Each structure stands twice: as C-alpha cells, then as structure tokens.
C-alpha cells in the first residue's frame, strides 16, 4: 500500500506531466466545475450541484478549497494527489465521503460567504467554538438532498 502510494507520488511529482495533462489535471487549477467531472467518479456530485440552490453563486472550489490564495493551491495539490491516486488504484471507499480535513475547509467557506447572516449564532460558543457545523443542518446545499 505504502509502496503504491510512493510510486504514484513519484509519478505525480516527477514524470507525471503527461498523465497530468491527459487526465486534465490542470483542470484542478481552474474554477470550472466541469474540471471536476472529468472524473466520472464526481458525476453524482456534479449533477447534484447543477440542481442545487448554490449553482448560481458557488462553484466547487468556492466550497471545497480555501479562499486564501496559498492554502487554496496547497489543498488543490493535496486533493489532486489523493483523487488521482484513488482514481487510478480504484481503492477508495465508496460511496465517496468527504475527509474531516476537507470538511473543515468546507465549513469555513460557508461562514466566509454567510458571515454576516450567521454572526449572531456564532457568537455564543461552547467549548468547540469554531465548529458550528453548518452541514449538520444544511447537508443538501451543495448537492441537493443526499437521497
């Protein structure tokens, strides 16, 4: 397993240019949601997004990558790696589930856009002040209802 990761890592960092091109890896760097559906694996999420209330306002990256410049590209690179690896080795858990780390990014992005509107409910904080989990109630904002 580790070996497999190492190989793919090597591929990506070293000689992966062609593959990167072929898989339209560059699309990771664009803001066009179609970039993400290059992987049929993301099809469901894309279709869901098309019907979601956010389609006019937010693209994949608005929700799934940090809005600050450097973290944004770092996250993209990291996710790009995991997703390529998963896609190639077909060893990921299905149904796809967001990782806790990306879940945090996501939540921060909700707040980033809805800062004013949620200002008051975020004032009172318990002991996990940062984590007023928007997704707990608004699970369907990105991709419609989960079922």
């Amino acid at each position, binding site marked *: 397993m580790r070996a497999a990761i190492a190989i*793919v890592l090597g*591929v990506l960092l070293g000689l992966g240019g*062609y593959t990167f091109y072929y898989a339209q890896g560059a699309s990771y760097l664009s803001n066009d949601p179609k970039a993400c559906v290059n992987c049929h694996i993301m099809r469901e999420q894309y279709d869901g997004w098309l019907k979601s209330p956010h389609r006019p306002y937010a693209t994949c990256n608005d929700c799934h990558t940090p809005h600050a410049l450097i973290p944004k590209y770092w996250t993209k690179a990291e996710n790009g790696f995991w997703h390529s690896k998963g896609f*190639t080795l077909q060893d990921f858990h*299905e*149904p796809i589930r967001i990782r806790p780390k990306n879940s945090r990014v996501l939540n921060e992005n909700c707040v980033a856009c809805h800062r004013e509107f949620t200002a008051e409910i975020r004032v009172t904080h318990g002991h996990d002040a940062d984590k007023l989990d928007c997704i707990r109630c608004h699970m369907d904002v990105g991709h419609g209802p989960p*079922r």
Partner: protein
Amino acid sequence: LAFGVLLLKENIAARKEEARHHVFKIVDLGEQSVDPADWGRNYPRQYDSYRRTSELTSTKYGGGGSDTLATDKLKEDPRLVTIFRGYAFAVDYRLRRGHAYMLSDQRDTKRVTQHAQTGACLHCHAANTVAYRKVGLANGATGTLNDPLVSSHGYAQLQKGFEKVGAMPYSNAVALVEHPVTCLDCHDPDSTQLRVTRPAFLNGIRKLAESTAPLPHLPSIEKWRKGDRREPYDPNRLATRQEMRSFACAQCHVEYYCGPKMTLFYPWDRGLKVEQIEAHYNSLKFPDGRRFFDWVHADSGAEVLKAQHPEFELWSQGIHARSGVSCADCHMPYKREGAIKVSDHWVRSPLLNVANSCQTCHRMPEEEITARVAIIQERNHALLLRAEEATVALIRAIAEARKNGATEEALRSARELQRRAQWRVDFINAENSMGFHAPQEAARILGEAIDDARQGQIALLQPRASSAAQPKPTSVK
C-alpha cells in the same frame, strides 16, 4: 518508474472507455429463456452476482449459517416447538438462505418429505412461468408460448396453469420445473425491464388496490384508485419503477395461504397491517363452511393461524417504505464495476454490504450503522422472546385445563386469545428482519401479543370475569 506513468495513463483511458460502454446482445432472449446462463451471456455482471446467492452467509439474525443444512430454528428456540405443535412447522423449520437454494431446500424439507404438500408450494420456489403457461395452454388457455407474458393471453395462460399446477401433488408438480427464481421471473426478456410474474401476487395486489386501506408508499395504487377503475390494477402497466423495485420481491416475501382447501392467495383484501389481515382471515369461510384457520393446535385445540415471512407487509409500515426506499435499494444495491453501475444480484443481508446499501443514504461510519441495527434487533428479540413465553404459558394453561376436563365453552375465550396472540407473535417471528423493517410497529404487535396471551391465562383462571377478558376487536384503520 516510467512503467508507473504508463500504467496510470492506461488506466485512465480504460475508465474513460468504460463510461461509454453499452450492452452487447450476444444471445436472443425470449419468453422461453428460462436458463439464467443464457441471460448471462448478455449480462455477465448481473449473472455473476446472481450466482453468488449460493454462497453461505450469516449475520447475527440473518442468513442461513455455514452448515450444509440451514440453521434449525426449532433447536435454537424450543418455544417454537410448543407453539407449532400439530403442524408441519414443528417438524422442520430453518433459517432462510440464498436464492440458489430455494428449490432444493423446499424439496428436502421434512415439511415436504414427511407431509403431503401441493404444487402450490412451487409458486415461490422455482422459475415457473413457462411451466405454468404450458399447463395453462394444455388446459384450454388461448394464444401461444411466444405471446409476451404481460398480455391478456400471457396472463390467462399463467393464471390457468397456476391453478392447475397448484392443485397437483407436490411430487408431480416439481417435475415441471428446473431452476430457482430466474431472470425471466423478474425481467421482460425483450427490454430487461422489471416485471412481476407471480399469479398470486398479481391477484393479491389487485385486491389490495380495491381495498380502502391508505397506501401512501404505493403511489401508483393511490392514483389508480382516483381513476375510473374500469381496468383492474396491473402493476406491470401502472407501477412506478421504484415500486417495481419492491414488487419484484413482494412476489414471494409475503404472508400467504397455501393449504389444500383453497387456491394459494395473499390475504390483502383489507390492507397490509397485522390486524387487517387477521380481520380478513376471520371473515373467510372454507368450502365446508367452517371459519378459516391454518391448523388446530395439538395441545390446546385452538384453531390457529400461521404467518409466513411478511417482509413486504412489515416493510410497508416502516419509515423506509414511507420514504420511498425499496427492497432492492438495500438488498440489491448498485455497485460500481469499473465505470458502470449495476444492481448487485447477490441478494442477501444488507449487513454484509453496508457501504453500498446503507451508506449511500446514511452518512456515517459502517460500525455506527451496524450498531444501530443491532440496537433495533436486540430490543425486538428480547420482546419477541417475552411474547413467545407468554404464548407458551397460555398453550400450557389451556392444555392443562383440557386435561382437567374443562368444557369447550370454558375454553372458548382462551382459545380465541391464543389465536390472536399466536398470529401476532408469529407475524414478527416469521418476518425475517428481526424488527428492522419497521421497529415500532413490530414492538407494538408484540406488545399486543403479550396482552392477548396473558389475558387468555387470566380468562381460564377467572371464568366469571371472562367476559371482561373477551378479545377486544382492535380498531382496523
């Protein structure tokens, strides 16, 4: 390392290809294509998983165990021996297992080898559409074997053959069939579209449609009811795709009557709830004029009922049915094969495949999902045992009273209560999800069973007050 890059590229190319994939027709399929291997040429993925129903599996309450013979229910729970005394189920009663076994398990059960059974048993244990139609044609039905099954000719042949085969002795009838449930039983050979082919189901669902029971989970019936009703309700023409994904299973996973005195039927004329079915049975008379019953209990002399696998009925009272979640969603979930999603034809316990079957809807770890099922099943199991204990206590009490010479009149009320209690206990015991398909409803039914059984004991001990302990008619809504 260069190898790695190529591999990666190759792989992506392959996946892109698969996404564009189509079905290649290799074999021409028709209404006589009974052999699943033929279908397998065209649909190898479905066929491969279909064949895996021969694998032996088990979960805490599901599957048939790993022995050659499926696990013996009577050994696991000796209360059942008392409860079924005088009936074939006291002789041999096992856990269900994969579809591949349905024909042989029936052929081999002592309920068949030691008791006389009819051909009606085959209705749910074999690929029988062609056999039924042939017998139907031989008995005067019109048309040919090549008529589509879903046509007036096809239906008439099927129904006629079903009646005739059902009346044969089992041993004659079983010679007419060869396969367990097969592709043709659930699919149109032309379009592969889902269809239902079991005559008793077609008859039963028609009666259900004509009843007044609210069926919010079956929208096509609610819609048919609002129409002119000139044509009877036909699921093959009217049901939604999502409904068909449950009807395919409701062909067999239902309560039925399959004794020698009447043609096999599903008792849905008043609805699908436990007391609606009971009310229907109570209203039925045998040709000899006696009130309907399955057998007379050997110890108590009560005319009692047997419930069989009412999965469809219990599911119908649960939150999943109400939310439009079908049997196939959980028991035949989609699985990805390369870029293609196919229905997993390895029909089995969803607990063996939580990722595909539950996690598409429930966003939580697998352990959490199985823990939730465990809580539901354990609660149900504890209450089920309690209800069985109460029923056994009542049976013993009646038997003792008989021995001590109690009059028929003195026993009447207790026997009626046994009939009620036993029907309810059995409804949940015979249902195969250990309460999961509708947890609160199952617990309610068991609560009523306990009450009935204990009131039966009281009625015997306190004959003067027995009028107070009369079975109260439960309001049927």
